């Protein structure tokens, strides 16, 4: 007996943010309450969908009753649900944070005016992407996501942000086109874009290899896997803080999600050499991103490079190719999303308070923002992968998977990456303990911004203590099931 109304929550999850975007656009003066209400509504709908999926198993909707191949199908299993939840949690935090961030007394009104509709639009694209059941629909949502994200980066104004946004846009379009060409080849070969149908029909052939190469390349470009990460740091670091948070936490994960889906469902026969290559690139990303982070002069750049490193971890699961490994990679994705949101928020607070984010001059700022630096430190614990935190659980699972697959060297990369992260986290946190009495011109940070950052960081820690729940969700519809058998 279900206490939750049996409506199409999956559709609501997409329609609601779209409606929110339109409303925020039409009534910019009411954008904050409208945005917050929408955010809460989305969280409620995701919860409703979660209930439905937990109670009844994986869900499939044919929007408008058309069904594949002409209509649009939505599909929700444990993996989609988990991604939607990550987006809901991080998205709610980002919405609350943005209230303070964009509505400071001296800010230009038009930034807030543009932020809310774009953000709601991005959220809708993101949710639609996680629910898409066909590879063309994935293309459309991916493209919409990219456009909204670029516009949000450009919102910061200034040369850095605009060039960052421009480069991001070109890379994003390029990636999408590669992906789309792959879609064209697959459709030609097998007459469907539906993932389930393709999974049944696709067999190794030169066309499939070409399609796979194109799609994987496009998605890697968008996921910023080393050495295709060149566009990420400038785009992520120059955006306004809440935008940086949502880019690092959610947007790059979307293309990874597609890659994972394709890899598991359509290309399960992908050969081990390619998987090893992805693992190697991931390992290079972990080390390179970690080193670069260590030598950055600006805090937001540092955090952006850490995103490059953390994305590398996700690819370590490919060569391991066992359920524990995939679970570990997804848990890494989940905890990184939450922790990185907290970290960018903390950086945003520091920038807001002191007007700069030069790391060497941080001591004058962080000592007067205890909540913010606590948030940074707690998020750092998760990023380093120290217990108790979501990052630790993820690292444990990946380590276990590496040892079980008798490929212990990936475990070594995990450990090295953790040490590098520890080096830069403590480099920053150490400034909280200096004795600096230099007076400094400052601006008071709204309490909501400090507390949101802290709450997000605490969530990242709690993910380490309540791991069985999200992990149980992942088993619904057994997205990794085929892998398990094979």
């Amino acid at each position, binding site marked *: 007996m279900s206490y939750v109304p049996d409506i199409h929550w999956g559709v609501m999850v997409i329609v609601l943010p779209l409606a929110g975007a339109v409303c925020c656009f039409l009534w910019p003066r009411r954008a904050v309450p409208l945005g917050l209400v929408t955010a809460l509504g989305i969280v409620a709908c995701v919860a409703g969908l979660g209930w439905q999926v937990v109670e009844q198993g994986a869900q499939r909707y044919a929007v408008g009753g058309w069904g594949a191949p*002409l209509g649009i199908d939505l599909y929700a299993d444990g993996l989609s649900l988990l991604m939607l939840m990550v987006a809901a949690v991080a998205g709610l935090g980002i919405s609350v944070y943005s209230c303070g961030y964009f509505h400071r007394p001296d800010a230009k009104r038009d930034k807030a005016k543009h932020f809310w509709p774009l953000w709601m639009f991005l959220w809708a694209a993101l949710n639609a992407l996680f629910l898409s059941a066909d590879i063309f629909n994935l293309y459309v949502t991916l493209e919409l996501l990219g*456009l909204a994200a670029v516009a949000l980066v450009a919102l910061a104004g200034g040369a850095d942000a605009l060039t960052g*946004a421009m480069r991001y846009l070109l890379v994003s379009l390029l990636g999408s086109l590669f992906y789309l*060409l792959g879609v*064209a080849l697959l459709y030609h070969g097998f007459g469907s874009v539906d993932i389930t149908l393709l999974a049944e029909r696709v067999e190794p052939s030169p066309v499939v290899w070409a399609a796979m190469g194109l799609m994987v390349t496009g998605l890697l470009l968008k996921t910023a896997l080393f050495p295709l990460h060149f566009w990420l740091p400038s785009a992520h670091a120059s955006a306004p803080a809440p935008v940086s948070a949502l880019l690092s936490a959610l947007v790059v994960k979307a293309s990874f999600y597609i890659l994972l889906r394709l890899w598991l469902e359509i290309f399960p026969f992908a050969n081990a050499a390619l998987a090893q290559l992805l693992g190697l690139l991931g390992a290079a990303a972990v080390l390179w991103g970690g080193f670069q982070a260590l030598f950055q002069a600006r805090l937001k750049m540092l955090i952006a490079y850490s995103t490059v490193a953390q994305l590398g971890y996700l690819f370590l699961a490919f060569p391991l190719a066992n359920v524990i490994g995939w679970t570990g990679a997804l848990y890494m994705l989940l905890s990184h999303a939450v922790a990185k949101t907290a970290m960018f928020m903390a950086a945003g607070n520091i920038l807001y308070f002191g007007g700069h984010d030069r790391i060497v001059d941080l001591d004058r700022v962080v000592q007067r923002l205890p909540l913010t630096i606590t948030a940074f430190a707690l998020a750092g614990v998760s990023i380093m992968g120290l217990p108790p935190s979501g990052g630790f659980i993820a690292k444990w699972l990946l380590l276990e998977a590496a040892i079980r697959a008798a490929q212990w060297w990936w475990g070594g990369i995990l450990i090295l990456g953790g040490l590098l992260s520890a080096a830069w986290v403590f480099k920053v946190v150490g400034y909280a303990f200096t004795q600096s009495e230099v007076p400094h011109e400052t601006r008071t940070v709204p309490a909501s911004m400090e507390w949101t950052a802290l709450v997000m960081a605490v969530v990242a820690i709690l993910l380490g203590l309540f791991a069985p729940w999200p992990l149980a969700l992942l088993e619904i519809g057994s997205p990794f099931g085929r892998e398990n058998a094979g």
Partner: protein
Amino acid sequence: MSSAFLYALVGVGLFTLGLYALIVHTHLLRKILAINVMASGVFLVLVALAARTQGATPDPVPHAMVITGIVVAVSATALALALMLRVRAETGRAELAEESQE
């Protein structure tokens, strides 16, 4: 070799040409044009390969896809052009600055 296959090859050719132009040209307008050429190439492949079997009625689904794709491409181009103008207004050049501060 069917004519459809020839069209598809031309599409792939356009894609590659666009990719080449995107990489070598520095001016943003040229880069945006290059992206558009690439997109046209992909659309050509999609339409051409819609004729799955010789002589039969072509599959309508790729056509729907191409229309969607064109809509997306147009909006992306609009955004890119607007952004290019802003970059030019801000930096005085319609080019991507070399990584200066990194």
